[in-house]
């Protein structure tokens, strides 16, 4: 299947494949965990049963997504060693402790309280159940914080020295954790997770509104999702701009590839809306450009000079076409999200948010775009880092395990088959759960759990006539 590929290329493909699958689930579960915590808190505060119904509905979806995130994450945690053992040996002293902190402070927290959140409402009472839900949400955010610190350090390494065997030796942990690109990356990723979730929740709400626009639960989730979108999308665009400026400072070659700047511009670089990178002749074919706007966006000055890829040695150049296109996909979808948010705001101000069927249709269509944007964003930043694993210091080709191509090819094939099968099935179950009207779930939820007693303990005798209570 992979004859003629080098072990390095196969290992890179394997990492890209497994990490792409993995990133999808946290992007969803970070946002969903926070959403569940908010729903639970609103239910406790207002006593409005709609919130509880929504909590029960999304809780099951969360559980499936979380399970997929856990298993794909375990794979990631071992892949550094299996395929990138030289990188592990040399960079391990710096990034290993950060990843250990992620496990110690976040993974255990999520896993420990997930059981109580999913199964424990009747056993611990509403207060502790709320606490467990909040802790799970906090854990997902903490996990994102550590892993983005690790990832950012690989892009903008800081706070280390290099010893005689070539290992990165930590010198200043503060500088390592809060490395130059970390804050931008973290904000960008967490907002992306919230946006992705809002788009999914909004799409599900819209789908059910299209079937029954008077359903309270559907109205509630659509409304909440659109508020989230209205607030988050503009913030994300601002955060993305800041991140871009930070990248220009620390990884100029990546920006050149993103912008398609093969040549340098003395007095203001254009913004290429479209083009086809031509690696042979080092230029952009069929380019559609707005003059000087590139310099304005990146340097907030129309006439600022911009160096191009002609200033970078060939063997330090990232693959331009991939970065160029993935960046455009991300940004394009970001503006589509902004459009949806604006539309939702207009309809809300007109008081027609639950009647605007075209808005609902658009929201359904936009449902999966958060995932695509997240993937495109990761491709942009990770491929843009090439040819380095630790930017400017350690090349990808020097990071590889002493490993033979057939072994990587065999494991890659196994990963592809297993992932498509397992996560394909999971996605199918998720979609089916989301397709189910909330009302069906809510009836079942009340039947299963009965009314909550203030003490948190429901005597068996009182649990029996529960069908009548919901009828």
């Amino acid at each position, binding site marked *: 299947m992979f004859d003629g590929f080098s072990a390095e290329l196969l290992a890179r493909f394997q990492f890209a494949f497994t990490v792409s699958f993995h990133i999808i689930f946290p992007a969803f579960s970070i946002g969903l965990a926070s959403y569940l915590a908010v729903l639970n808190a609103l239910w406790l505060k207002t006593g409005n049963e709609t919130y509880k119904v929504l909590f029960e509905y999304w809780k099951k979806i969360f559980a499936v997504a979380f399970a997929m995130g856990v298993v794909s994450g375990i794979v990631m*945690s071992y892949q550094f060693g299996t395929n990138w053992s030289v990188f592990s040996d040399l960079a391990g002293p710096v990034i290993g402790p950060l990843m250990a902190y992620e496990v110690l402070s976040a993974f255990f927290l999520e896993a420990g309280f997930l059981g*109580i959140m999913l199964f424990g409402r009747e056993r611990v009472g509403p207060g502790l159940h709320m606490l467990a839900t909040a802790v799970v949400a906090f854990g997902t955010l903490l996990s994102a914080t550590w892993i983005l610190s690790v990832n950012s350090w690989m892009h903008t390494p800081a706070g280390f020295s290099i010893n005689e065997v070539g290992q990165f030796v930590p010198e200043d942990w503060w500088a390592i954790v809060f490395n130059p690109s970390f804050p931008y990356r973290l904000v960008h990723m967490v907002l992306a997770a919230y946006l992705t979730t809002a788009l999914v929740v909004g799409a599900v709400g819209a789908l059910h509104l299209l079937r029954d626009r008077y359903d309270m639960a559907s109205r509630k989730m659509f409304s909440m999702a659109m508020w989230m979108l209205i607030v988050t999308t503009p913030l994300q665009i601002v955060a993305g701009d800041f991140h871009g400026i930070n990248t220009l400072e620390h990884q100029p070659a990546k920006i050149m590839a993103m912008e398609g700047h093969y040549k340098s511009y003395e007095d203001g670089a254009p913004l290429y809306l479209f083009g086809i990178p031509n690696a042979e002749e080092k230029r952009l074919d069929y380019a559609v450009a707005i003059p000087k706007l590139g310099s304005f966006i990146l340097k907030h000055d129309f006439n600022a000079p911009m160096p191009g890829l002609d200033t970078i040695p060939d063997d330090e150049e990232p693959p331009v076409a991939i970065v160029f296109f993935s960046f455009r996909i991300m940004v394009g979808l970001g503006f589509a999200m902004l459009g949806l948010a604006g539309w939702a705001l207009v309809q809300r101000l007109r008081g027609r948010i639950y009647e605007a069927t075209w808005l609902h249709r658009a929201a359904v269509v936009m449902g999966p775009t958060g995932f695509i944007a997240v993937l495109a964003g990761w491709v942009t930043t990770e491929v843009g880092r090439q040819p380095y694993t630790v930017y400017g210091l350690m090349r990808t080709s020097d990071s590889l395990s002493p*490993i033979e191509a057939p072994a990587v090819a065999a494991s890659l094939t196994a990963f592809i088959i297993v992932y498509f099968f397992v996560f394909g099935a999971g996605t199918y179950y998720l979609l089916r759960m989301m397709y189910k009207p909330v009302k069906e779930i809510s009836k079942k939820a009340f039947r299963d759990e009965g009314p909550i007693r203030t003490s948190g303990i429901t005597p068996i005798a009182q649990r029996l006539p529960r069908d009548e209570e919901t009828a």
Partner: protein
Amino acid sequence: MFGFELSFIWAGIIAFAVLTYVVLDGFDLGIGLLFPLTDDEEERSVMMNSVSPVWDGNETWLVLGGGGLFAVFPLAYAIVMPALYMPIILMLLALVFRGVAFEYRWRTERWKPLWDMAFFGGSLTAAMCQGIALGALVQGIEIEGRAYAGGWWDWLTPFSVLCGVAVTIGYAMLGATWLNMKLEGRIQRHMHSLAWPFAIGTVICMGAVSIWTPFLDSVYFSRWFSWPQAAWSAVVPVLLAGAVAGLFFGLRKKQEVRPFLCAQALFVLGFIGIGISFYPMMVPPSLSIVDAAAPDESLRFALVGTVVLVPMILIYTAYAYWVFRGKVDPAEGYH
């Protein structure tokens, strides 16, 4: 000033994480192993529900074992992972199947048997691979410079396969004794009857591994058979004999807690036995704990958090077990 001691403290912490993983995830992998031994769909549901709220936390200790090794013994990690490439990858894929089965099995009627198979197959493969990886580590890993220098099939030997079988049968014993403790009525009686053969099998396999190990390496041999070390080492087999007696006595008396605890004690003592053979090596025969350790800065930084966080983890893990204490209610579960 702690340079020397720090790496040994860390070796202890990693060993603790791996042992905790075995103690906690062993029995829930064991439940998967027992799945084909019943045709009753209800029974399988109750078996799975006995660990649904806690399995995820159990498995996290495996991530800590691997992540901790990466953090504080990156060289050992960089050597062991390529050396055990195939068993590790197989184990990861198996854990993927097993982990999703916990959710998927309740989401479909038609494909339920498929996810039951995935749960069993995943548990079996993961258990076998863990045992094989352990066996391969015990028999030694060839190193040149800072990298693995052996072949791609070095991990596969009669000894490592025996270790795989031993761990698998042992996990099944843990699963059966756990379920004997957590279930009631007919299902409990079934699990009680299954605990017997797996307990006997475990004792036989552990005996075989214990007899074989000292002959793999002269260092191991002297640990167990040369005076005065042997006097200390001999404590382990004596305690093992006590645990075996307690296990069978408990099963005969139809006790619920003691067989499970004694079964766990077998694993703990076996683990200590391996530790006695290994010390002070990280990756036998040539990579020592000190040589494998990351720079002091890494060890110190990671230790500060670990000292605070691991006790907290143990406390809230215990709390989670406490919340779900007692017999499993067959009607419970959120599915």
